[in-house]
């Protein structure tokens, strides 16, 4: 199974092949657990989130499309969402609506950054993130790693919702620009 691409493994999952699930877990289980543990700070909760995520992937693998992003992006989005759900439950916060996990969005012909995504490493991104203003970085991290909505971040920090939206929007645009300067793909028509 090692030689098969992620996309073929997902198709095999759809056929009901549990060996493909094992192979996919061998590829992404550690990344999934690391993300979930970073978000939840608890081994048992992270295990639950990863298990739920992979079962979800098992159920829905047939609807995955390369036209909407890479397999890794999809898998990590599912793990991210399950971790948000479990984190909120553990904190006694009401569950919230989460974005569609790629498969129900319309297809577009290309993902300009799919290659970038594969080349990007955590250390590089950490360095790039350090280059954006603290308040923008904090808003991005509160959103992504702590699973807060923009409104919740505004309440948490006692600032207007529009300010949070602006910090996230500008922070992400800056991050993208900094990454481009490092020579990682993408077009150059963004700020």
């Amino acid at each position, binding site marked *: 199974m090692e*030689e098969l691409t992620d*996309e*073929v493994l997902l*198709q*095999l999952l*759809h*056929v009901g092949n*549990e060996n493909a*699930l094992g192979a996919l*877990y061998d590829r992404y*289980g*550690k*990344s999934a*657990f*690391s993300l979930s*543990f*970073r978000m939840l700070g608890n081994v048992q909760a*992270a*295990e639950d989130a990863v*298990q739920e995520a992979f*079962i979800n992937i*098992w159920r829905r*693998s*047939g*609807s*995955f499309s*390369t*036209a909407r*992003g*890479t397999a*890794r*992006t999809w898998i*990590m*989005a599912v*793990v991210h969402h399950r971790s948000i759900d479990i984190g909120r439950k553990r904190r006694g916060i009401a569950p*919230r*609506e*989460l*974005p*569609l996990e790629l498969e129900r*969005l319309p297809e577009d012909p290309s*993902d*300009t*950054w*799919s290659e*970038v*995504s594969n080349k*990007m490493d*955590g250390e590089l*991104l950490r360095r790039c993130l350090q280059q954006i203003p603290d308040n923008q970085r904090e808003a991005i991290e509160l*959103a*992504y*790693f702590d699973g807060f*909505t*923009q409104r919740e*971040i505004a309440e948490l920090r006692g600032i207007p919702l529009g300010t949070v939206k602006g910090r*996230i*929007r500008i922070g992400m645009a800056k991050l*993208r620009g900094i990454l481009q300067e490092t020579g990682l793909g993408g077009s150059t028509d*963004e700020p």
Partner: protein
Amino acid sequence: MSHDELTGLAAGYVLSALDADDLKLFEAHLVSCAECRASVADLRPLADGLSRMTEDAEPPFALRERIIASAIAEPKRTDHAGEAPPENKAPWWRRPVLWPLPVAALITALAVAVAVVSVWGSQTDGNLSTAQSRLDLAYDGLEIMAQADRWWRFSGTDIASGAAGSLAYSTETGTACLLVWGLPEGDQTVYQARLTGADGQVSVHKMWRYNNAMWLILDGDPSRLERLEVTLSIKDLPPAPDSPTLIDISLTSS
């Protein structure tokens, strides 16, 4: 909300940070706005990159087995609905009882008839020429099977144990019809037939599909072939030489 305001939600969207009302608005907007979809596609790798920023944490060893055990315990998915649950004994088509030819022919003809009716229905989708060519192929398949004097029957490989099919050859028409059913349905799943000749030459053919029945018309006597495989592929990607085999028919030994 203006288009600029909506576009501004893309960053929050890829971070899964939109509140319910913004999320509903933005997702509804995405369906019809290619520019915003491009914006999301552009930013999504950043979110993916954030997931790589975490310190490595080793998952418990037992988690892998627990996930696989849970997956196996899952009820059958909808595309397998109606199939018999797994039993200790071999599936009926693998049991050492030969199918009477008339029964096999009847099953095959019925499957094609269903496909014909389904294809007929698809004409209302507007793609008349595609529907017509499929209909022609289905009639050709019926004709071959009605006159067939040689049959091969087969089941799926280990990774497609729910699949089965028949290959019928009519000496009179000099053509064969391959019919396969029980293959899973998926938006991005496509199947191809890979033919290996006695000289080792390989050719790949797209199979016609409706739901989980698939068929293909082949020119000439299939017994001239060394092997016929139905392999899994992915829509929009070129056929991969190492794509997984779901049906494997060794024609020389049949």
